[in-house]
């Protein structure tokens, strides 16, 4: 990989990797450090990347490993996020946005990760399976469970199902 190709990767994927990293740790500073480390390691290990088409899942894999490594080294400061520090989208219903973020944060990582990769990154189930090192069936099951869990939170625990509503 040449320097120009590497720069292209950074410009193409740093934003989505930051978002993925943010949802891993919920800390913007740690997320940026994770992205920095991901690209540093990607450059060091560039000989391993034989096909440019697989660069994206490869970068996600590196980031996941970096996050796991960081967790081994120290406990991440994920509990001291100030409410006012939570990033918000412009012009969106803030209360709803905040509620959805909280719900998303309540998902365990094994369910949140594939959901992020699919919703943010547009990954297929096969690509998610490759990044996470699990089978496609497991990915599909996790995606289904994640959406069902969010749906329950979304509608409220005691709410009737959509089938009940329409019948």
């Amino acid at each position, binding site marked *: 990989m040449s*320097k120009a190709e*590497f*720069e292209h990767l*950074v*410009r193409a994927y*740093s*934003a989505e990797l*930051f*978002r993925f990293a*943010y*949802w891993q740790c919920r800390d*913007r*500073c740690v997320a*940026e*450090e994770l*992205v*920095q480390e991901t*690209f*540093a390691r990607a*450059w060091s290990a560039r000989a391993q990347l034989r096909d440019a088409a697989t660069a994206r899942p490869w970068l996600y894999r590196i980031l996941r490993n970096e996050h796991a490594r960081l967790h081994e080294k120290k406990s991440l*400061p994920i509990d*001291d*996020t*100030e*409410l*006012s*520090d939570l*990033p918000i*989208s412009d012009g*969106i219903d803030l209360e*709803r*946005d905040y509620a*959805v*973020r909280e719900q*998303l944060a309540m998902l365990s990582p094994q369910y949140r990760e594939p*959901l*992020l990769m*699919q*919703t*943010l990154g547009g990954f297929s*189930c096969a690509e998610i399976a490759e990044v996470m090192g699990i089978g496609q069936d497991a990915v*599909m099951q996790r*995606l*289904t469970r994640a*959406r*069902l869990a*969010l*749906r329950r939170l*979304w509608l409220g625990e005691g709410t009737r199902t*959509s*089938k009940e*509503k*329409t*019948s």
Partner: protein
Amino acid sequence: MNCLEFRRAALVDPHHPGHEALEHEASCPSCAHFYRELRMQEEALYEAMNVPVPEGLADRVLLRQTRGWRERFFPRFAAPALAASLALAAAIGLGWKFQSEALTPEMLAAGIVAHVEEEQKALRAEQRVPLARLVTAVKRSGGELGETPGETSYADHCPLPGGGAGEHLVFNTPHGKLTLILMPGKRITHPVRLDKDGLTVSLMPAGEGSLALVSENREKIGEAESWARENLRWQGGRT
């Protein structure tokens, strides 16, 4: 395809449930209702996931990497901002005597001036940074904050001369903009004041690292130092 199969397919991938699933949805009011709700949920989910990306992230990644490339040919302290400084030129002239972690306070101060000059957007910003964010930034650097010298107009995580990262804060004070850069990993042997390019920088030890105060108002830098001593507390003592 029946209703159960449709919902299973829609929950796995709401945007691409497949041709058969969409055919079923068109003919089943109950599943159509479920699908509408699911897509609304997906839209909200995407908005929530789509957190703002820090400005200049890609540039900072490339900056750090460029530094890595340059390190093959120059000492590690040759950060782009510092490369232009006379201090660095002098150091190179001395025969590559110093290594990155051994930046002298004078060289670090010169690097800070270059950094502030490069980050003009920080001085121009009027972000109205919430106090909680400021407190968090100081806490992240291992300190505690008392009173602020004015309204915070900018706060961000930034790369530092010679490597590492710190907190870059700017305050609106009655005497103009005051920049505070917290550098938790940068130990210095002694405090330093440096006047360069119309800026005055004061480098002070702070906890396990150091901090830099930068002002265009040379006369008021002493006042800023007093503020820092009184209002920034670090584990193991004051600034």
